[in-house]
């Protein structure tokens, strides 16, 4: 070890600071059961969501066909189906709420991807086909503005401008802060984003609730993770 060049050690330290290595090197993520596939529904038009699979049940509000930030088509995880109705996860408050929409004017999709954020260990594990393939160090919410726990999904994939907070990319989630009802003009929306113009030390808990990742990790993620991909946030 003494003979290793300092530059190599420095490079190793930098690498370790952002990437914890293949998931196989860690035991905790592999113990988690993640479904190999997740059914999704892309909305071709706005849908009324109901509490039960019939239009006589309590209305839960309208889900727009396109997401507000980018105009991307809305894609929702499908939790079940019954008689022409889809049980879907819904974006926004209350966190993790679900409802039923009509199957008409939707397009079925699937994803093999799944993200798991562990706030206690401050890391993000990427699953493909039920197998953990990457683990990344992250910054999570501080005690006063914690990252909310629950089952969520990616609402939108956003390419930010270089001057934007959290550039270069953000994955806006269906989760909302349990503390901040409004933040910076938005609804307290939780996202995964980069470190540009905001900073922080990976592995710490200093954010307002968002999950910050190294810029190169975000570039890796946005090439693979799109709307509808499930995101589980646990302790």
């Amino acid at each position, binding site marked *: 070890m003494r003979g290793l060049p300092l530059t190599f050690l420095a490079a190793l330290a930098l690498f370790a600071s952002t990437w914890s290595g293949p998931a196989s090197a860690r035991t905790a993520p592999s113990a988690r059961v993640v479904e190999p596939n997740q059914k999704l529904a892309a909305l071709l038009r706005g849908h009324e969501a109901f509490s039960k699979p019939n239009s006589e049940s309590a209305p839960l509000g309208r889900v727009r066909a396109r997401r507000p930030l980018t105009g991307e088509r809305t894609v929702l995880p499908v939790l079940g189906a019954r008689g022409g109705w889809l049980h879907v996860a819904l974006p926004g408050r209350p966190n993790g709420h679900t409802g039923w929409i009509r199957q008409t004017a939707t397009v079925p999709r699937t994803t093999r991807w799944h993200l798991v954020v562990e706030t206690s260990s401050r890391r993000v594990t990427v699953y493909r086909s039920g197998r953990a393939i990457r683990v990344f160090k992250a910054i999570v919410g501080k005690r006063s503005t914690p990252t909310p726990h629950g089952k969520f999904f990616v609402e939108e994939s956003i390419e930010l401008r270089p001057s934007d907070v959290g550039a270069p990319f953000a994955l806006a989630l269906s989760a909302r802060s349990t503390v901040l009802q409004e933040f910076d*003009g*938005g609804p307290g929306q939780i996202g995964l984003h980069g470190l540009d113009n905001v900073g922080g030390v990976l592995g710490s808990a200093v954010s*307002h609730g968002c999950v910050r990742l190294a810029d190169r990790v975000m570039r890796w993620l946005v090439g693979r993770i799109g709307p509808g991909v499930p995101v589980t946030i646990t302790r």
Partner: protein
Amino acid sequence: MQHFIFRALRGRKLVQSRAAGSTVLVAVFAAALFVTLVGGAAAAAHGVPLGTATRFAVLAGSGITNTGPTTVTGDLGTYPTTSMTGTGSLTINGTNQAGDAVTQQAKSDLVIAYKTAAGEGPTSPITADLGGQSLNPGVYNSASSIGLTGTLTLNAHGNPDAMFVFQAGSTLKTASASSVALVNGARACNVYWQVGSSATLGTGSTFRGSILAHDSITVTTGTTVYGRVLARNGAVTLDTDTIHRSACAQTHKHKGGKGHKGHKGHKGHKGHKGHGGSGSTGTAHPPKRPVGLTG
């Protein structure tokens, strides 16, 4: 808070040696000066967290009645009485949540917000009609009613986060053609009116701020509200009005989608499609509006 400061200083004084007596005197003098200066201005107000009620422009406890063409920008809901009349002439730029779970949660959050607003302090007393006055950020309290005839000016002195909280022990009543004006960076999203009983906005008035009323809210003919009308227990009555929910725009600069035209370089992401299964593979898009994630 002032009481606490004096107690703390007194406690410290007990353990000071005589040699440190002059230091204590200076501290006491500084504290007294601070109290004098602060006491002369309105107390600093904190924000009133509306919770899920934030998205609502109109929220009621015992129904919503509308007459004439009224435009509501923001959500609308009422619970536990879910009756709505005159919705045919309502234009809703938002969602009619009716009495659904979203409304019920918002009503619950409204109670918390109401109590938070009522508990803000220390307060500056207001007794006379607010018309013709210019007020600085702070918490203003009337043990009975608050009236407004003419124009009330709220001056933020260049601070866009400046808060204004008004507490009325009983009613809030504005005269016809009265208005709330905002100057020097004051924003309607930072103005709150906590009303102990009911609020009535006079004909043709222009009102700014979120009304959190214990009972009912009546918005008479031709009134424009930049804010919210949120009634805990009573009804909301509208008549040919415009209710525009105020949301604080973000303070750092975004210019929407401009400058994003040159993103052809991201076609390279197509190469990842094989990883994602159909449809869920990522391709980031530039935002069409300010993003505003929690950071």
